[in-house]
């Protein structure tokens, strides 16, 4: 009953890989965009903001379909990306892209809030001490925003781990390549007698989510103590 089969392990390992890669790759972009939205005024800011938040409000299937149009083998960018060796369609990399896009609003939102909460007077102080804009961001803004960056990353990781609609629309449900925990559970509930296996995967998903929350709480507490200067 509690024995985990190799196929199930494959789905779990794939989910972890997809969610980790999606989070790690989107984090630098998320930080840069969050800083831009929090600290800069520029034409088209409202539009950029809307585009970033779009996956949060669109049906995931629609996001998946748009990804297919853009990054599918015959897609707008998919064709020439394939020429330079980057293929998304029906690959785990495509699942990571879908998860990254779906999680991006949560990532940017959390980091933006924490950057907005950093006292700009401290940034002014850094400038009078000789720090240019880039150094100020690296040595003052981002360290002080660290609790929010960690929270955003964990939130994005959890969202990526649970992503289903956009992934299955964009890269289908191929065991060993694009079949994540969510897709595997869905498949098992569609076959007679698959309930017990599905329940096992549900249990694993709960454990992973719980572990992610505990780790984030621990990091957040440490970073928070540092930020408050004690």
């Amino acid at each position, binding site marked *: 009953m509690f024995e985990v089969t190799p196929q199930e392990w494959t789905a779990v390992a794939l989910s972890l890989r997809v969610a980790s890669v999606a989070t790690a790759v989107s984090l630098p972009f998320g930080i840069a965009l969050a800083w831009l939205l929090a600290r800069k005024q520029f034409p088209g800011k409202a539009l950029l903001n809307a585009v970033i938040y779009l996956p949060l409000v669109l049906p995931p299937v629609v996001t998946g379909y748009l990804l297919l149009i853009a990054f599918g083998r015959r897609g707008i960018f998919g064709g020439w990306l394939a020429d330079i060796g980057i293929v998304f369609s029906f690959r785990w990399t495509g699942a990571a892209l879908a998860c990254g896009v779906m999680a991006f609003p949560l990532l940017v939102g959390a980091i933006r809030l924490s950057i907005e909460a950093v*006292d700009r*007077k*401290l940034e*002014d*102080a*850094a*400038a*009078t*001490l*000789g*720090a*240019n*804009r880039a*150094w*100020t961001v690296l*040595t*003052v803004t981002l*360290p*002080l925003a660290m609790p929010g960056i960690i929270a955003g990353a964990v939130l994005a990781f959890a969202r990526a781990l649970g992503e289903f609609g956009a992934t299955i629309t964009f890269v289908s449900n191929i065991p060993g390549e694009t079949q994540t925990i969510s897709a595997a559970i869905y498949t098992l509930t569609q076959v007679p007698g698959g309930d017990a296996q599905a329940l096992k995967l549900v249990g694993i998903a709960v454990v992973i989510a719980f572990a992610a929350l505990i780790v984030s709480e621990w990091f957040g507490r440490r970073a928070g103590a*540092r*930020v*408050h*200067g*004690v």
Partner: protein
Amino acid sequence: MLSVDVDKTLGDFAIQAQFEGRSGVTALFGPSGSGKTSIVSMIAGLLRPDRGRIVVDGDTLFDSTAEIDQPAHSRRVGYVFQDGRLFPHLTIARNLDYGRWMSGLAADPKALASVVELLDIGHLLKRRPGALSGGERQRVALGRALLMQPRLLLLDEPLASLDSARKREILPYFEKLRDETKLPMIYVSHDAAEVRQIASRVVRIDGGKVTATGGVELLST
């Protein structure tokens, strides 16, 4: 030698300030809300004047007609803020070292030791700002500004957030600094007693304008 001639409109408040600062301590004296902080912010490069010219030791920091506007980080003007503004995520030692590091100066253990001794902050080095009292924080803020080797030091109501006992405790450090270094200083305050104790020259500010320039005799009127 500092020369300031700036205009700046903030909402419906207009600042028109023209004065010179010589060596030693020049006080910008005036009631709260008279524009003193805005004036020093313009000298530091944190606020951009609408028009005018700011020159320190022959180096033009700002000139609207010549379109010169050096960014704050390259002005080498030290700034001690009313609220200290120590970096809460760094230890006191790292806070003190920040300006030297960012200004690309070589490590100077002798300068560090003398500032630490002058301000009596040696026992605080390993702590973080959150664990310091208000007076300790202002001493560290002063040390941090000194260690970037500024050519001019702006002290913006550095004692205003402290109670009178703490003020009496800190003021001697400013006097020591005035007597032991040749660093020109602009001391912003609305407290006549404080200004009398620290400054020799007084620039009176009222409603955004310089109303008088002279010695400490201006404080009594």
